């Protein structure tokens, strides 16, 4: 029980308790961090692009500055509580408020703005640079590659970019607001119906990465991810040329089932009769890393299950369910789709 009036010693003892407890808490936190594994493919702390690299540097500066300020403030507070009455005069107190409360923060923040705001300037884009239009849909991504001077190439749910080259994403939305975030590449940019936003980036380290929708967009917002592949420029050019070609499916029963069940009403498979544009383009479906916007592995069973009951994996998905489709037929369709390389 705290006594109502306590001597200075009592206060000091109490503060020792504060410090001890504080040490314990921060120890526990550090341990938490160690337990946590670190992912390298969807993290602002593990950049693979120039923009994200710059922000990681900024983050470090901000964190160090914050820790210094926090520790200094805590020290001052403890000193203030411990100081005997009258240690600080009224005039001294007012000077303290003026200098530490107003002047120092003003200067620090001014310096911070001068340092950080120039980073907002996007890298310059020339007419020759690759443009990729990404349109947010509930709950997937419509992707169109637009290399200068050639017709666009349509794809979905996966973005491939060449390393070392400037790429300008044109970001749109068709239904509700989404946000386009590849943390390892750059900060996020919203996709807003009726508007087009631009995000200019440059990837530096080849590899497989992941992005996600960060604006709440409905039931399956959590299931709206994006596979990202940064490739060597030559490999990228080859890949894009392959994507430009129509599908060359091996004749299979799956293709017939695809047509019979009306899949073509929503999906395009270029080179076949399927010309629907409501759902994702499936022309080179089999070449993608994952299914259903980064949600399911590229495996026959997973695809078949998704065809029959998309709601199980993605609640609220626009794709109609086909629960009466025999599982084997679904597998046939899945196999056909996987064959679309």
């Amino acid at each position: 029980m705290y006594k109502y009036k306590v001597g200075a010693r009592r206060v000091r003892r109490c503060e020792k308790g504060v410090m001890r407890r504080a040490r314990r808490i921060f120890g526990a936190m550090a341990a938490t961090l160690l337990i946590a594994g670190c992912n390298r493919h969807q993290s602002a702390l593990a950049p693979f692009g120039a923009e994200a690299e710059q922000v990681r540097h900024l983050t470090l500066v901000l964190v160090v500055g914050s820790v210094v300020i926090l520790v200094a403030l805590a020290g001052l507070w403890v000193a203030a509580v411990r100081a005997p009455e009258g240690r600080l005069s009224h005039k001294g107190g007012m000077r303290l408020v003026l200098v530490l409360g107003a002047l120092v923060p003003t200067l620090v923040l001014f310096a911070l703005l001068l340092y950080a705001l120039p980073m907002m300037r996007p890298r310059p884009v020339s007419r020759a640079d690759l443009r990729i239009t990404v349109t947010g849909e509930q709950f997937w991504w419509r992707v169109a590659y637009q290399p200068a001077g050639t017709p666009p190439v349509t794809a979905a749910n996966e973005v491939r970019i060449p390393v070392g080259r400037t790429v300008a994403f044109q970001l749109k939305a068709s239904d509700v607001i989404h946000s386009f975030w590849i943390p390892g590449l750059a900060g996020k940019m919203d996709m807003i119906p009726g508007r087009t936003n631009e995000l200019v980036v440059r990837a530096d380290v080849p590899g497989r990465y992941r992005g996600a929708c960060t604006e709440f967009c409905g039931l399956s917002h959590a299931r709206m991810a994006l596979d990202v592949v940064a490739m060597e420029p030559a490999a990228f050019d080859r890949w894009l040329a392959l994507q430009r070609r129509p599908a060359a499916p091996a004749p299979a029963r799956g293709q017939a089932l695809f047509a019979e069940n009306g899949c073509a009403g929503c999906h395009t498979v270029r080179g076949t009769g399927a010309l629907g544009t409501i759902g994702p383009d499936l022309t080179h479906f089999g070449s993608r890393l994952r299914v259903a916007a980064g949600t399911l592995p590229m495996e026959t069973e997973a695809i078949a299950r998704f065809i029959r009951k998309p709601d199980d994996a993605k609640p609220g998905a626009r794709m109609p369910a086909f629960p009466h489709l025999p599982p084997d037929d679904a597998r046939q369709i899945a196999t056909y789709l996987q064959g679309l390389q």
Partner: protein
Amino acid sequence: MTADAQNDPAVRRAQEERLRAVWEAPKGWFFRWTDCNNNRVGNWYVLTAFAFMLFAGVLALIMRTQLAAPENDLVSASTFNQLFTLHGSMMMFLFAVPMFEAVSIILLPSLLGARDLPFPRLSAFGYWSFLIGGVFVAGSIFFNAAPDGGWFMYPPLTTRKDLSGLGADIWMLGLSFIEVSSVAAAVELIVGVLKCRPPGMRLNLMPLYAWYILVVAVMILFAFPPLIAGDVLFEMERLLDWPFFDAARGGDPLLWQHLFWIFGHPEVYIIFLPSIALFAMLVPTFARRHLLGYPWIVLAAVGTAFLSFGLWVHHMFATGLPKISLAFFSAASQAVVIPTGVQIFCFLATLWAGRVVWSTPLLYATGSLAIFVIGGLTGVMVAVVPFDWQAHDTYFVVAHLHYVLIGGTLLPLFAGLYYYWPLVTGKKLSDRLGRTAFWIMFVGANLTFFPMHFSGLMGMPRRVFTYPAELGIGGLNLASTAGAYLFAAGVALVVIDLALSPTRPKARRNPWEAGTLEWLTLPNSENWGTRSIPLIESRYPIWDQPGFVRNVDEGRYFLPDAEEGRRETIVTTVLDARPLQVVRLGTPSVKPMLTAVALGGVFILTTYHLYWLALLSGLATLALVLAWLWTGTAEIPEKPCKPIGHGLELPLYLSGPSSSGWWAMFITMMADATAFSGLVFGYYFYWTVHPAFPPSGAGLDGPGIAWPMVALGLTLASWAATVAAREVHARGRVALARMLLVAAPLASLGGLAAGLAGPWSTGLDPTLHVYPAIVWTLAIWTTAHNGIGAIMQVYTLARSLAGRMTPTHDADLRNITVFQHFLALTAIVTYLTIGWFPEVA
């Protein structure tokens, strides 16, 4: 009554008997709920807000349990979305803001030595509105119908009928209703601070808590109305298909974001500043000295309020706005650190200069400042635009905002709870339980939210019902979940402490030995507030004014009696608190409660599209309000003046700018005008985003210039007639005034008809495009005010005919003139915008 007479204990006892009888609370299982005294209503208000907080906390625990492990399926995506929407909405609208207002309703009269707030029945009305709206919104989750679009409700997700259900209407209409009650409480608190201070308490002697109430209430006044304007547009789109946020028909989802965040960011300071206010009361007490830098703190509070209205775009850094405006808002967002720093350093310097008495409230204050500072530092980080592009809408922001709100609202409220509990109940809470609870909560909060900084930067977006194991953030999330349960255990311990309170003995009076006025309260407090209303000469009168407590207790100051058996308090001047009037206060009545029920009916029935019943409910509301005003306001007293002691005699009736009623009208109209400017902002916002605005085509051309100008002329005629009526009435020419009051409503109704005739006659189709929709909205807003103005004019005429208004007692007429001033302004802006602007654009 002279000071000498107070020497006689028998006289004092007789006075006390009379006061007790006058201020007695109503009894009976039903009538006890008709009470409107600030102590009773304030306690209901606090308990209700606290209960909503616990409820919203349980929702958070369910969410944390779901997120404890990757790919968990404890709750469905749909339930999860309802959980986080309701958690955020309830904590903001049903806990943080009402809690501040509730605490202020309890504290303000005792801080100001007043007997009650100026409009006790308005407090009761606000409370019942809050309860009804709160239960309506919170209860929806039990029917799986809770809003699920996030507390920010971004359209088009929430406006498209195929993507959202009843929950969106429940959010919009239920919370609009609560916003009305919040604005009502703000009006009450502003008038309380400005007009009900004790004699001598100049603005610069006011307790800091009162300063903060004033600042925060003014912020509510300007922050909530833009949201109300947004709500109007939102519901027009949902119920009538007017395309304000539908890009395909010229709307723009970003308009909602602007209106929401013009409210949403000041909101953060609306719930943070009252906590600083609590610190400003308890720090001097435990430092045993005056607060250092009083004028600095006041300036900093005003500065924070001012800046907070210029920061909203920092919630929209990722929406693709021009870089130059991002830079401006980034700088403004960081500038707000400076007044906050000044406030914190004033406390620090006070503790440094004083003799610190360590106590449980001070422990809470220290701990919450530590947490708040961490939240403030991450706040500076997210104010840096390039960093925000990474952190925005990730768990980093979840961590940031919870550090700010737990350190800036929740723990300070607990500090205030431990500090002020003896004031309200006469008993102290347990130091041991309180201290233990503090440490559990402190560790719990850090364990919950610190790891979120990392899970956010490591790729975890907000508002996800689950996350894949491959992100490697399972461990961080598990720690957060454990921390949440720990935090809940701490809150539970506080609840236990509160529950044990009735078993504890009464503490002595002023147990912390504070110096401010509210600690005059006795452990067995009476409903009447202070025994006599004191003369204030210092910021800490109990410390500084010799014999202060005895003089108050023995009724040696003002108004120690209730001879006429009426509830009374003193009204003073705004700046230097010279006594102006003894005002008669509202007594317990069932009307505020019934009005709240009827008004709640309007909102709730509209939610279920029962428009006829909603209209009936609206008419009932109108009838109740008129009955309430007719019987309870601007009463002509039985004598012009009464003595209040020390040879002072004050009038019992005032009208115009020196009266509290005029100020309430003026302040309410400021809020009304702010909501209107939200709509006007909408018009010009669309003009800026469209190359051709107004567009041309069938159903899009209108409303022409003729009808709007006729409407403007008639509205101005109605205004002129009202002003003239006020002037001739004051000169005793009652008959002429009555004739003018017959002409004025006719002109006003003519203005109503002409205002609607413009868009009607030109066939503007509001479902076709956003242009006709916004024109119709402005016309309807203005003409609705014409209608209300006409009702007021007829009411005033009736008051005059019934002998309830005379040339010397003309508060009604003066108050409706204020309304007419604002209506005239509204009409000028509306009709120039919709009628004249298309001609010149």
